[in-house]
Structure formats: C-alpha cells, structure tokens
C-alpha cells in the first residue's frame, strides 16, 4: 500500500520494486530476447544481495535501488492491457460507463407515468429480489 508503507513487509516492497523494474525494462527494449537479457542481468543483481540479513542494510539497498529506478524510469510506461487500470493498464480504461439501475428510482413521477407497465414490472421485480435475498437464494 502506498499510503501506509510501514504495513508492508520488506519482501513485499522488494517484490513490488522488482516488478516495476521489470516493466521499466520492457518499456526500454522491444525485442523479446533483448528484454530477457536485461531482465536476467537485473535478477542477477538482486540475487547478489540475497543472503543479506541486516534489516538496516536491507533498507539501504532498497532505498538505493528505488532511487536508481526513479532516475532511469521511461517517460512513456508500457501498458499491456488496454482496459485495465494501474501499471498494467492503458488507454481504454473506464471507456464504457454503465449507468446503475437505482438511477431509475429517482425519476419524477410524471416521467415515470410515460412508462407505466415498465415501472409496475420493475416494482414487482424489486419485491421478488428482496424476498429472494431474505430467503438466502441470492448471495
């Protein structure tokens, strides 16, 4: 969590850093073998410090690594899935807005009077739904 870093363990922070560093390498290089080459080198760099036990040293190494990642980030991060949000997400996130059904309850009665059959059926459906929820048929 970015808002409470003290609640994450050191290994979680390292894994998060590793993923971001891998994505940065994917942003810089395009051919798959070039990406894998640089990723293997990166993995080797991390594996060199695998056996460190001192927490102070852990924090120092992570700080240095985060700083290096920040200084070498790509100005145009790569996004593999266009409809996702976050570091994997891209341009098509949140394109289709789904209007929730409860908006219909806020219609003015005069507007509702234009579609009497629909709203009558809607009230029946709502009652059925509440009954089914109370009976435990719907979770």
């Amino acid at each position: 969590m970015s808002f409470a870093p003290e609640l994450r363990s050191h290994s979680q922070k390292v894994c998060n850093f590793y993923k971001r560093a891998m994505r940065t390498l994917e942003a810089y290089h395009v051919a798959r073998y070039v990406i894998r080459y640089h990723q293997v080198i990166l993995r080797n760099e991390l594996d060199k410090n695998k056996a460190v036990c001192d927490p102070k040293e852990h924090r120092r190494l992570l700080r240095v690594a985060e700083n290096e990642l920040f200084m070498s980030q790509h100005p145009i991060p790569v996004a593999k899935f266009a409809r996702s949000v976050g570091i994997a997400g891209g341009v098509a996130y949140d394109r289709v807005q789904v209007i929730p059904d409860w908006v219909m309850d806020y219609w003015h009665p005069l507007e509702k009077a234009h579609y009497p059959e629909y709203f009558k059926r809607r009230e029946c459906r709502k009652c059925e739904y509440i009954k089914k929820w109370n009976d435990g048929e719907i979770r």
Partner: protein
Amino acid sequence: MCFNSFFFLFFFMLINFFFFVYFIMNGLSVFFEWEIISFNSMSIVMSILLDWMSLLFMMFVSLISSVVIFYSKSYMNSELNLNRLIILVLMFVFSMVLLIISPNLISILLGWDGLGLISYCLVIYYQNLKSYNAGMLTALSNRIGDVMILMVICWIMNYGSWNYIFYFDFMKNDYVMFIISFMIIIAAMTKSAQIPFSSWLPAAMAAPTPVSALVHSSTLVTAGVYLLIRFNYLLIDMFFFKVLLFLSILTMFMSGISANYEFDLKKIIALSTLSQLGLMMSILSLGFPDIAFFHLLTHAMFKALLFMCAGVIIHMMNDIQDIRYMGGLSLYIPLTSLCLNISNLSLCGIPFLSGFYSKDLILEMVSFNSFNLMVFILFYLSTGLTVFYTFRLIMYVMISDFNLMMIYNLYDEDYIMLNSMFVLLFMSLLSGSFLSWFIFFYPYMIYLPFNLKLMVIYVSILGSILGFMVSNMGIYSLNKLLLSYNLSSFLCLMWFMPNLSTYGLSYIYLNFSQILFKNIDMGWSEIYSGKGIFNILKNYSVFYNIYQMNNFKIYLFSFILWFMILFIFFFI
C-alpha cells in the same frame, strides 16, 4: 443512420465535384448575399461565397466524412450510442461547410465556434478521465481562438460590415487591419495547433479513431490554415507573418523530433499531423497560399487513411495502441498494411504519390527563393525527420517480430472498414496529380542546381536509414545515448511546452484563487452576508421569542412601559 449519412455526404461530394470542375474551367465565382439590416454606416448581411477553392475543400471534407461514417459503422459496432456519434459528426461537417463558404466573419464565427464545441463533444465521447482532461485541453485551447475572432468582429465593425474580402485591397495599411491581422493569426495558430498552442493535438487522440481520422487530421486542424489562406492578401507583408514563419518552422521541427520518441500509435500520427501543419503554415507565411492549399488537400487524404489503418490495427490488438507490442503485422493484414504503407510513403514524399507533388513543390520553392539559412536547414531537417519516424513506425508495426500474445486474432477481413479505406487509397494515389493539373494552370518555373534538387532524396535516404537503425536495437546497440532519461523525456514530451502552457500558466492563478476563495468566499462574505445575516436574524428572533412566549405579566408590563414612553415623549 450510418448508411443514410454516408449516401447523403457522398452525393453532396459528387455535386461539389461537378460544380468545382465547372467553376474552375470557366473561372466562375458565385456570391450570394442577403441583407438583413442596414442602418447608418453599418450593414449586416448574410453571404455565401462559392468559388473553386471552397467547392474543392467542401468536396474533400464531404468525401472524407462520408468514408469515415461508413468506417465507423463497423469500427464502433459495439457502441450503444452510435447515433450520438453520427449526429455529432454530421454537425461537425455542417460547421465546417459553414466555415468554408463564408466570406463573412459572423458566419465564420458560427462555424469556428461550432467546430471547437463539437470537437470537444467528440473528444469526451468515451467519458473516462483521460478523455475529460483531453477534451478540456482541446476546448480551452480552441476557445482562445474563438475570443480572437470575436475581437476581430469588434474591430472590423469600423469598416461598416463583416465581409472582410471587400476591404483587403483598400485598407491594407490601416492600423485597424494591423490589429485584425494579429488576432487572425493567433486564432489560426490555436486551431492549427502551432507553438505555443500545440499541446491539445496529441492529447485529443483520446477521441475514437474515426473522429481522429476526420477531425484531427483533415478538417478541424486545417480550418486555421484555410482562414489564413482566405486572409492571405491582407497578411502578406505584415511583420506577424515572419513571426508565424518562425513559430511554424519550430512546430514542424519539434513535432518531428517528438514523433521519433513516441510509442503510442495514434500520438505518432498526431505529431506527424502537427509537423505537416507546421509545413503548411510555414509555406503560407513565405507567400505561397496556393501551395499551402494544395498540401492541405493531399495531406487530408493520406492522413485520414493513415488513421483508419491505425484503427484497424488497434481493433485487432484488443485496443492496445503501443507500437512496442506490435510487429510483423504485414504478414497477417496484407490489405491494411498496403494502405498503411502507401499513406506513409505518400507522407514521406516518395515520387509520384500524392504527397510528393505538394511536398516536393514546397521544398523546391523554399530552395529556389532566397530565404534564411535557418529556414532552409529546418525545412530539410524536418523532411528528414518525417521519413525517420515514418520508417521507424513501419519497422515497429510491420516488419519486426510480433510482441504481444497470440497471433490467431490478427485479421483484417472486415470489408466495411477495408472498402472505406480503399476509397481513400485511390484518392491518396491520384489526388496529387489530379489537383496539380486543376489548381496550377501555369506551373512554377524552378531552376535549381543538381545537388539542391536532389537534396530531398538525400535527406529521405538518411532518414530511412536512421529509422531502420533506431528500431532495430539489439543488445549491443550504439544508439543507447538517445535513450537517456533526461534527453528522451525532454524530446518526447514536446520540450515540456504542454506542462508550461497548462500547469505552468495556471498554477499561480489557481493558488491565488484558492486563497481568495478560502478567505473571501468562504470567510468574510459568509460573515457579512449569507450565514452572518442568518445568524443575526435567528438570534433576534430567539430574543423576541422570550417576550412573545412568556407569561401574560411581562406582556402587560411591556404594554405599560410603552405607555410611559409615549407619555414622557408627548407631555414632558
């Protein structure tokens, strides 16, 4: 609704074509005028000008919009509100036609404002946060131009009417015309996204791809160029044209460099459009409006085609626009890659495609006339950069290895989209020669030394080699220097000008307005009106309630007190 609109616009295009041929062969120009009111020295008229230029431009606009609407029938197939998009596009075309046929500043304003507003509605069509931000940027940048046109309308009232074409020959050296020319140039710069108003064009790629093909490649962004072509007789000797030359050449150069560092497919094409707009503005400011118009038309054709091909590719790649995930697509989508390659080569100015006729003519005129060395260098450098990013794009998209996931979903057998692209392909191949025969009755006589004549070929070859090299980076490449964070972020983010013109300009004022809002709106004005008066009235009514709701004795006592005051006042 799609097919109806397509047939209507196609038929409109055919009418315009026949009238254009008739008008240009006979040298005709028709001017309709309806006088609305005339008082003292002011006359308000509604006028329509139909000459070969307006008919030709209307023909191209209606052809591209008809083809784009036909394309969007298939592209936006899953869209629930497709009718909304079609209606917006039709309104856009109507505004554009109004702009094209008006010799009157009021109807130009109607078309100009309509273009800006409808392009805002089209950019925010998808309703995610990115589109909203992009739409706001587009609308506010265009609004500056609208304000300039409004001020021109105020100033030109000095002459008695808003028909500017009547005043060119007579009022050329007037002070009022000096001010008008300055404002017209600013308005055209905002619409055509020249520096410092160039941040909205790459951002507006948040719009759907058919919208980008129509609006952001061929119609909206060329409205500024068209306005300056109409005003050209007035502006030709003005100092501001030299400033426009400087800014447009810088725009051309800057966008050429930014396109080389960009990885979003639509943004690369948008920056390419920006580069060509800079080229049109610069050749216009050098004094060749007919060549600028020629390039405007040929560019519209191949750029719309390029956007449509990009749309097919994006559809195929599951909405991913990043060219780092594309590669080797020419094997799987042969017809689309045919259209893409021809439009790209036309953009580069490869001989005898449509772009060659206009681009080569522009470069030869620049070489033939004795202009500044910087002008010369930046023109050829930008031409080389155009070929550079074009070949880089072709390498990344068409030739390299495929980089995404599966290849079974790569297909382009959607014949609605393909048929619409073939119409523009036909025009991309032939419109250059066709227009050069129609527009230029007498060819320009150009005498150049041999090497200067071939300079275009030299820079094109150099650009293509660099484009090939930079997209083929292996493990031990030498061009890693260009990938350093500082340099690449500076060059790909358009020299940080969008940051300067948005965050840089508004930060101080927004901070100050927050202080004002907190202290005055939510502070003192609440005490002295609003909540303060409410509190006073409430406290008074509580105070008076003590007397009203209390027992009878106090009420009688106040009665007696009041009598005593009256007795003292009247009798003592």
